[in-house]
């Protein structure tokens, strides 16, 4: 298999984007990535699009986007793995290049979510759970993570303060990210006075629905080196699943898919968790970031809360986590998120992140969860 590198990135403004259609959002980041890579787009051999179809009235958006980008007759299709759809597109693209089927490809993550009402979105998202035995009782997405949080608090002594620390950290960094949806810091009061959504989770424990797009251009090693002198290599890929149904999970204090995906990615890249300098992890809820740092081996099992509250995941701590604001402050356009994470890590490894740059970042990681852990993709990036 050939080594695969990222040679161009594009990232749009996340948030309420009632100024543009989905394909127009996609074009913004495509334009940026083509300019960033400084290639002739005719060189792009295929496009994979991560997006979750149910939020769009346009069906089969991959075809519409490929047309709007002007990339017909090159192939495209859509990948869906709930909130990890963007990482599924990236994995597909990586495999096509590594195999030799393609030399240069585009990975597009995009989503418009704000056309639907919040209750409709809660309804749709709840149906990422098993509809036959769970959604029939009105389960919601925050409801599932509330079940996880309750067990984690009970077993490991995780506290309200630990959850709040995640939200505050991510808003602190979101304030520094020009593409983030929320660019304001928040204090403990703000989090703890926010309305309960699903006990013990409050509004400020939850990420926000957003519109947005992000994209990557990948190339095989030889071509990548000809095109660019700042290639970031995608050297470790992991992907795993866990039962869709919370009724079939042995333990709710971990996402087994994340543990397995991380194991694969570390092994493939030949690194230990301690070598990761900067990570974007899937903080759809505050408790999810606590699970993530444990599942990824950044701290001991059960110690995610104190680890984060002690500042170890801030810049200057043991490992910088979600210093782009995370899903919490950057916003979570579900199909775009996995690609957005990769864009952030590429920019960190290139040293382009200005006042939220992690100094000396040479190894970075993304951890993108679909649903409540049904899917997890972990990727390890490296600069030379």
């Amino acid at each position: 298999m050939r080594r695969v590198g990222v040679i161009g990135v594009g990232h749009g403004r996340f948030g309420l984007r009632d100024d543009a259609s989905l394909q127009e959002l996609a074009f913004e980041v495509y334009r940026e990535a083509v300019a960033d890579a400084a290639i002739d787009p005719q060189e792009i051999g295929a496009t994979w699009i991560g997006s979750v179809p149910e939020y769009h009235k346009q069906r089969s958006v991959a075809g519409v986007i490929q047309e709007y980008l002007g990339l017909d007759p090159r192939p495209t299709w859509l990948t869906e793995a709930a909130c990890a759809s963007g990482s599924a597109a990236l994995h597909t693209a990586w495999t096509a290049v590594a195999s030799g089927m393609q030399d240069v490809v585009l990975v597009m993550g995009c989503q418009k979510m704000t056309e639907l009402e919040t209750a409709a979105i809660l309804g749709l998202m709840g149906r990422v759970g098993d509809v036959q035995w769970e959604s029939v009782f009105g389960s919601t997405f925050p409801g599932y993570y509330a079940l996880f949080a309750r067990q984690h608090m009970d077993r490991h002594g995780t506290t309200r303060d630990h959850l709040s620390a995640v939200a505050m950290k991510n808003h602190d960094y979101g304030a520094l990210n020009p593409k983030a949806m929320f660019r304001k810091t928040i204090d403990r009061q703000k989090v703890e006075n926010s309305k309960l959504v699903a006990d013990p989770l409050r509004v400020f424990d939850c990420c926000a629905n957003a519109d947005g797009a992000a994209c990557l251009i990948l190339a095989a090693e030889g071509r990548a080196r000809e095109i660019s002198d700042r290639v970031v290599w995608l050297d470790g890929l992991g992907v795993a699943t866990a039962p869709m149904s919370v009724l079939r999970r042995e333990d709710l204090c971990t996402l087994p898919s994340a543990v397995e995906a991380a194991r694969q990615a570390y092994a493939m890249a030949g690194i230990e968790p301690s070598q990761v300098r900067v990570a974007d992890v899937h903080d759809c809820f505050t408790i999810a970031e606590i699970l993530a740092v444990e599942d990824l081996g950044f701290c001991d099992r059960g110690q995610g809360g104190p680890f984060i509250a002690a500042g170890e995941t801030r810049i200057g701590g043991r490992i910088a986590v979600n210093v782009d604001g995370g899903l919490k402050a950057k916003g979570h356009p579900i199909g775009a998120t996995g690609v957005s994470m990769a864009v952030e890590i590429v920019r960190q490894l290139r040293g382009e992140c200005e006042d939220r740059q992690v100094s000396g970042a040479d190894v970075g990681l993304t951890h993108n969860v679909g649903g409540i852990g049904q899917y997890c993709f972990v990727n390890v990036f490296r600069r030379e």
Partner: protein
Amino acid sequence: MFESFGLVSFTSHTKVGDVFVAGLVEGRLLASRCASCGEQSFPPRADCVVCRSGDLEWVEISGRGRVSSFTTIRAAPVGLEEWVPYSLVLVDLEEGGRALALAGAGLDVGELSLGTSVRLNPCRSEVNDELRVYYEVEADS
């Protein structure tokens, strides 16, 4: 028949629907058991995850179990807006398997903790003008 299961329905057809719902209507909680290898499942499955056989038998279970986790939903999905707040309890069943279910009127969620003994009770009631069958979690007396 499965369309009448739960507060709302998203599954119009399933091989395990009719028997399971008929059981609930009679106040019985049924698990599936593989006729080939004996693997038991709650919730029921039409196909054995162990040996792939499609022959299933039904066994009645007591519904007794322990609280694995719980939450109170305060932001409702479409269709259940007037139902909030409602509490969901995840129950590890004594006879294997797990259920997610509504907290019944007799269960004080404020007093609940993980590990508490509870019981799944089959029940029927009118929800949004439809007769629904489901189960609720009650204190195990």
